[in-house]
């Protein structure tokens, strides 16, 4: 808080200084609009900050002044001499108060009421006004501020010093190398050591001067959120976490705009209006959580809302109609790819352009701004449940500790922060095995997927496979994998420089650096290596990202697994997040459909997995009911055994399918069910075929509250009139008959029981049996 206060005082002082001339000019010419505006801005800023720091006296003063000036700006009042004098008196007083605050003294607020009173338009009475400008008694002037000594420097200057320090490190490294080759090394060793230590100190100090708490970025956010949500008629609660994370000063400035933009999007497009939220079964007040945390050499800033989520099918449709992708592309895209379409220039699903967002400055600009500083932006969204936007920004711009490795003659650097462990080949601690195309290393009791650097880079390695060393790397998401390299070299502090765009485009390099002897070394990008090596980290991460309303996103590093015995007797593990509940049905509820098994649970027909016909014995079948938020799948099992957590490493299966791979839990192998594969195979196609669609007017409260639960209980997916086109059933009321257009069947509700039903589809709205019959006849139980 002290930092913030100092910042506030410094900022206010700076504005006051700049204002000095303006005040005088305004005094001479009170009609001068530009001067008026800058004075208004000043009191406005002071007022805003006061509210935050709790200086009621200062707040009252600046607030009263702001009101008076606002009247003048709006033309309700003329800036006469009396007002000018009163304002000037208050500005002087604010300057005094700032000094007092800085020195930690008393604010002596006794005379302030008179100052405020002087602002009131007093008809033709100059008496009070004449008195008001006199500044408070001289004894209230505290001693000159000595407690805080700070200077405000342009960032460019810091940059210059920083790059000087970087070059100094390079020069030192070079000198160190030359000294090693000299015979008289011992003579200079000690002074050189001292020089090295000093350089390290200076560099640390320099790095610190560039660091700032993210708090300075976050403090303005509650206000921003409040203003935006008020303007848009939404209710949003903001939850901010991680303000104490430190980030490069310049980086903070660079991400300020992208972050603001993301928050605007979240409130404008993500959050539903309170009524809609209520209808969707959510709390009226939306939750927007903004958090920062450090992960390796990156800072992750998450903006999570529990709004309506991103409608990927609409995005895809729009992208196709805009010619950005074609239908064939769309069919191949994963959910994540489809959501990532929001980054395409000129693609916005905003139905209406509002004053807040949707004005052409899109997510594409946000992304390019973030990528310009070596950051990344990711979006996850679950339709109807919310969206998470994650900014990854590098911690610092310049120097990182690195591990150098080599393939053949060529050296490469790995960021030390991603290196979890180094395993030398000759230790015999690693056991490498090949499972199909995949390579797996057994390190102690862990199994790690591995990639070979030489293969990824299409280089010829110089050592035999058995002699390769292994570097265990950690991805930003927390998963680990092994990287096999020819040789391991030094730990070094390297000055990282950006590489040309064409080289960046390979995705394999994060930058480059110069070694002691001035040769460039490429810095490898760990995520890019994993990707190029074909590791399926994406699906891994994906599964853990099921997030529920108003809940924080779960840490990706530990995932809860449900251990169970399958119907075939094998040990399996199922991610907890996808299990909705456990069901038990009679064996005759299982049906054999044309493309697989189906099971009837409470009038719903779900695809059944994990069961083969001959494995089912006994009278009943127990199953997990799995849900991805949209569709449901049943998965048969014999017995639930335990709940365990998975900490990231497992052996990937070679073939895509229902099993993602094998995990070791409590020393026993278990097949990890891959919900992604399962839902890909069974979820979409089937449940869309299965769940008939019913359209009913969104505005009809009776239908939404009374009828909808019954309709949904009968297995319908309910849409409103915003979804046009063909539906299985439409329920129309007397007031909204047009809802029926394009429906296969129609139910028309009438409010009186005794009316003569001329229309065969007309049903009295409390004729429960009639409604049930009408609903059931359309659910297409085949």
């Amino acid at each position, binding site marked *: 808080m002290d930092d913030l206060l100092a910042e506030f005082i410094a900022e206010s002082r700076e504005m006051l200084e700049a204002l000095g001339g303006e005040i005088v000019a305004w005094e001479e010419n009170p009609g001068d609009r530009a001067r008026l505006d800058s004075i208004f801005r000043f009191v406005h800023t002071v007022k805003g900050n006061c509210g935050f720091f709790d200086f009621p006296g200062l707040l009252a003063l600046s607030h009263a002044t702001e009101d008076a000036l606002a009247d003048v700006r709006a033309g309700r009042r003329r800036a006469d001499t009396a007002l000018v004098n009163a304002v000037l008196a208050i500005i002087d007083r604010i300057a005094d108060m700032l000094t007092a605050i800085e020195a930690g003294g008393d604010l002596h607020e006794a005379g302030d009421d008179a100052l405020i009173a002087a602002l009131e338009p007093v008809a033709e009475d100059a008496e009070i006004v004449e008195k008001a400008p006199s500044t408070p008694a001289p004894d209230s002037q505290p001693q000159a501020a000595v407690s805080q000594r700070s200077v405000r420097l342009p960032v460019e200057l810091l940059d210059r010093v920083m790059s000087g320090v970087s070059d100094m490190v390079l020069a030192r490294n070079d000198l160190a190398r030359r000294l090693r080759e000299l015979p008289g090394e011992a003579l200079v060793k000690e002074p050189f050591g001292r020089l090295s230590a000093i350089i390290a100190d200076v560099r640390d100090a320099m790095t610190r001067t560039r660091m700032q708490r993210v708090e300075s970025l976050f403090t303005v956010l509650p206000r921003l959120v409040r203003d935006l949500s008020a303007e848009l008629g939404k209710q949003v609660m903001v939850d901010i976490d991680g303000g104490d994370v430190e980030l490069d000063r310049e980086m903070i400035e660079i991400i300020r705009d992208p972050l603001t933009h993301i928050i605007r999007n979240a409130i404008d497009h993500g959050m539903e209006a309170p009524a809609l939220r209520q209808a969707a079964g959510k709390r009226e007040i939306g939750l927007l959580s903004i958090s920062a945390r450090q992960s390796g050499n990156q800072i992750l800033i998450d903006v999570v809302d529990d709004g309506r989520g991103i409608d990927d099918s609409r995005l895809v449709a729009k992208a196709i109609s805009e010619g950005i992708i074609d239908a064939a592309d769309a069919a191949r895209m994963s959910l994540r790819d489809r959501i990532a379409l929001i980054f395409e220039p000129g693609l916005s699903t905003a139905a209406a352009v509002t004053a807040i967002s949707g004005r052409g400055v899109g997510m594409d600009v946000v992304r390019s701004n973030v990528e310009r500083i070596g950051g990344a932006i990711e979006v996850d969204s679950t339709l109807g449940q919310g969206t998470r936007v994650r900014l990854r920004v590098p911690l610092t711009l310049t120097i990182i500790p690195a591990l150098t490795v080599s393939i053949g003659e060529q050296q490469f650097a790995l960021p030390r922060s991603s290196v979890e462990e180094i395993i030398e080949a000759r230790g015999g601690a690693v056991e490498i095995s090949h499972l199909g195309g995949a390579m797996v290393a057994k390190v102690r009791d862990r199994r790690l997927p591995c990639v070979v650097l030489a293969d990824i880079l*299409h280089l010829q390695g110089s050592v035999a496979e058995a002699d390769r060393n292994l570097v265990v790397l950690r991805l930003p998401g927390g998963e680990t994998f092994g990287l096999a390299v020819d040789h391991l070299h030094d730990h070094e502090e390297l000055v990282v420089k950006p*590489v*040309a*765009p064409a*080289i960046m485009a*390979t995705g394999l390099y994060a930058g480059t650096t*110069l070694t002691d002897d001035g*040769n*460039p070394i490429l810095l490898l990008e760990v995520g890019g290596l994993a990707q190029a090596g074909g590791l399926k980290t994406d699906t891994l991460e994906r599964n853990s990202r099921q997030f529920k309303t108003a809940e924080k996103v779960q840490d990706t590093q530990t995932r809860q697994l449900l251990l169970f015995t399958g119907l075939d007797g094998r040990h399996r593990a199922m991610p907890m997040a996808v299990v909705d509940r456990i069901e038990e049905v009679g064996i005759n509820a299982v049906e054999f459909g044309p493309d697989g098994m189906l099971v009837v649970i409470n009038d719903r027909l779900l695809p059944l997995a994990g069961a083969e016909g001959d494995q089912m014995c006994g009278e009943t079948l127990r199953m997990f009911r799995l849900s991805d938020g949209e569709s449901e799948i049943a998965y048969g099992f014999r017995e639930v055994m335990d709940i365990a957590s998975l900490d990231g490493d497992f052996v990937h299966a070679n073939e895509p399918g229902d099993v993602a791979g094998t995990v070791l839990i409590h020393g026993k192998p278990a097949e990890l069910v891959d919900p992604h594969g399962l839902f890909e195979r069974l979820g979409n196609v089937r449940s869309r075929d299965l769940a008939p669609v019913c359209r009913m007017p969104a505005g009809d409260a009776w239908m939404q509250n009374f009828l909808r639960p019954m309709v949904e209980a009968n297995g319908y997916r309910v849409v409103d009139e915003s979804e046009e086109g063909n539906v299985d059933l439409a329920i129309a009321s007397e007031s909204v008959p047009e809802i029926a257009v394009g429906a296969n069947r129609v139910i028309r509700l009438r409010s009186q029981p005794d009316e003569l039903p001329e229309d065969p589809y007309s049903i009295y709205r409390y004729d429960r049996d009639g409604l049930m019959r009408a609903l059931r006849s359309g659910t297409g139980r085949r």
Partner: protein
Amino acid sequence: MNQLLLIVNIAGQMVALRADDVQSVIELDSLIAVPRAPAHIAGLSALRSRLLTVIDCQRSLGMESSGNRKAGAVAAVVMHDNHAYALMLDAVQDVTEAWSDPAPVRAELGDGWDRVTIGMVETEKGPLVLVNTAAMIAGQEEARAA
């Protein structure tokens, strides 16, 4: 407007570069290959503590890789989008004045030269192709992809 030109040999041809584009002409101290980078990127080199991305001009023209992709090769240092590049040259001839503004080339240049040519300039050594360094840096694959 008599522009200064640097006359160099690229891919066996005598061509001109705008002297304003070229910061210096150097012999590459070192050349570190960048695996899996586009083919026309010969690698990285350093000039004092500055990093250079070395462009194989011959490859950028769509021809075979230069046989001289190694330390010691002559290169022209140019800036493009805040990155320093070194364009590999066969040889450096001279600095001379342009006698004319670049004029459209009427003849078919072939071999990818069209893509990197600004125009034809008259010089004391006769008409020369004036090379667009940015297009040279972009390389053929990228140009095609864009």
